């Protein structure tokens, strides 16, 4: 006779139909590290744009080329320099990447989706800025390109967790529970819906 004990609450960490858990630290820490590197680059570029530095390091296209990008009308179109906005984006990436347990795809969907919203648009914005460099200003900026590369590289690895959260909310909806409550991490729902 089997005497296995089944806990009344669901404690699975691997999402249903998945082969791994996208919210483990092994999945998230690399993204936080990469976002932090992006943050440092963006802060350095902001320091130039805020005139705290006189020049910008650029081993490939020369400082003058980088500076013409960083002083361009697009970079200065808003009250704050664009690199500072980028720095804020990377900070949001890192913070929303690090908050939450390794089950957060179901216990904290709002944080995972906020993380996805921080990572996705940052990458798309930097794609636009990469195109703008040669097309509008006929110049290149190595560190700006590096930052764009970093934000693009983050998108793919970040999206699996978002997918797991969205699928969880889909199951919540099919089970007849409130997706709004589940989005904010309702414990009763997350311990009932697998």
């Amino acid at each position: 006779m089997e005497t296995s004990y089944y806990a009344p609450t669901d404690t699975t960490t691997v999402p249903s139909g998945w082969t791994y858990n996208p919210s483990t630290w092994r999945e998230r820490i690399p993204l936080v590290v990469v976002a932090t590197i992006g943050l440092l680059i963006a802060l350095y570029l902001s320091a130039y744009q805020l005139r705290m530095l006189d020049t910008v390091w650029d081993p490939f296209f020369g400082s003058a080329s980088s500076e013409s990008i960083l002083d361009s009308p697009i970079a200065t179109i808003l009250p704050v320099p664009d690199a500072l906005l980028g720095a804020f984006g990377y900070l949001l990436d890192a913070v929303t990447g690090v908050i939450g347990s390794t089950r957060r795809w179901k216990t904290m969907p709002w944080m995972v989706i906020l993380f996805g919203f921080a990572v996705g648009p940052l990458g798309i914005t930097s794609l636009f800025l990469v195109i703008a460099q040669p097309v509008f200003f006929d110049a290149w900026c190595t560190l700006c390109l590096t930052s764009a590369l970093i934000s693009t590289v983050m998108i793919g690895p970040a999206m699996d967790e978002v997918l797991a959260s969205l699928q969880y909310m889909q199951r919540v909806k099919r089970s007849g529970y409130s997706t709004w409550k589940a989005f904010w991490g309702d414990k009763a729902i997350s311990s009932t819906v697998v």
Partner: protein
Amino acid sequence: MTARILNIGIGLWLMVLPFVLDLPRSWANHEYIIAPIIISIAIISTSESTRDFRYANTLLGVWLLLSPWLLQHLGMTYMLNETIAGLLVITFSLIRGKVSERFGGGWRSLLARTPAHLLAVQEKDKNKNQRYGS
């Protein structure tokens, strides 16, 4: 992975093409717009969970094939470049490559009538019930 890296390589080639062929400004801009998009799509579809995003590059490959015909003709070298690059981008974007993880039916499950991740739950419940006869 290899197919994605090759498409990144083609994107980089298109990026330097304006220098190599000394293209006029408007044509250079065409490359400067399309190349970073191809590279970004290839980078994103390197991840297994977003692998199907590669089909976006299929469309861009088709655009590369059509662009010399739809826009002003600019000589044989340029046309050959765009055509070969277009064919290669299409080919590599159609290669799925290795996907060793499963994602509960992936992104398309979100629109599916019976999503794979939901079926997996039902399957598990059924097995449990059979085993314990409830």
